[in-house]
C-alpha cells in the first residue's frame, strides 16, 4: 500500500491529532471555529489543516461562503486493516472496549 507516508507524518504531531479530535467531536467546522480556544495562531491551525488535508485525513466542503472541515477516517481504516487480521479485529475491539470502560470507571471514582 503506497501513499501512507503523508498519513503517518500528519499523525505524528499532537496539535494535528488535537484538531482531528475536535472534528471527531463535531464534524464540519470552519477554520474560525477550529481556532476557538486554541493556543495556536490562525496561521498555525491553517497550516496544520493543510497537512491533514494532503494526507486525506481532513476533507473540505464549500457551503456558500464557508469552507467546512470534515474528519476523513478512511485512510486510518486502511492502516488498521493492513495489520489487523479478521480474527484479531474482534479481540482488539473487546480489549479496547475493556480499556475504555476501565478508564471511564477510574475517572468516575
Amino acid at each position, binding site marked *: 500500500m503506497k501513499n501512507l507516508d503523508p498519513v503517518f507524518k500528519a499523525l505524528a504531531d499532537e496539535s494535528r491529532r488535537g484538531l482531528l479530535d475536535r472534528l471527531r467531536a463535531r464534524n464540519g467546522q470552519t477554520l474560525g471555529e477550529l481556532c476557538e480556544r486554541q493556543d495556536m495562531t490562525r496561521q498555525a491551525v491553517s497550516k496544520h489543516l493543510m497537512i491533514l488535508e494532503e494526507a486525506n485525513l481532513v476533507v473540505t466542503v464549500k457551503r456558500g461562503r464557508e469552507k*467546512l472541515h470534515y474528519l476523513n477516517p478512511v485512510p486510518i481504516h486502511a492502516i488498521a486493516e493492513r495489520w489487523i487480521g479478521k480474527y484479531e479485529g474482534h479481540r482488539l475491539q473487546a480489549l479496547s472496549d475493556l480499556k475504555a470502560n476501565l478508564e471511564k470507571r477510574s475517572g468516575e471514582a
Partner: protein
Amino acid sequence: MSKPSFVYVTYIQTTPEAVWNALRDPEMTKDYWGRHRNVSDWTTGSAWRHEDYDDASLVRIAGTVLESNPPHRLVLTWASPEKKDDPAKRSRVTFDIEPFMGEVRLTVTHEDLDDEMLRGVSAGWPAILSSLKTLLETGKAMPMTQKRWPGKS
C-alpha cells in the same frame, strides 16, 4: 443546501466507470458491502433498495434515486424501509466520482442524518470504502466486509 453530517474521500487506482459499476454490481457489493446488494434501474426518480445478497426479503435501506449521472454522480435518499416516507427520517447520500491525477477520487457525502442513524453510519462507511478501494485495486475485498456485520442481523 444542508450541512453534511459526514464526508468521506478515498482515492482509487481505477476508472470512474469501474467505481460506478462497483456500486451496482451485486457480485462486488456482496464482497465489500457486508454481503448485501443495491437494487434499482438507477434512473432519476426510481426506487432503490439495499438488501441482503442471499435473501431479498431482508431490505435494510430504501429510498429514491434523486440524481443519476453515470459515471460521475449518484444521489440517493436513504432510510429504513419502514420509515422511507417520513421526511424527518430520510437522509441523503451523494457519490461523486471524479478523475484525479490518473486515479479516481470518490467522495461520499451523507446529509440530513438524525442522531439515531448517525452512529451506524459513522461506523460503516470507512470500512466499506476502504474495502471497495482494495477490491478495485487488488481484485479481492477485505475479509471483514465479505460477511454480514454483527448487529445488522
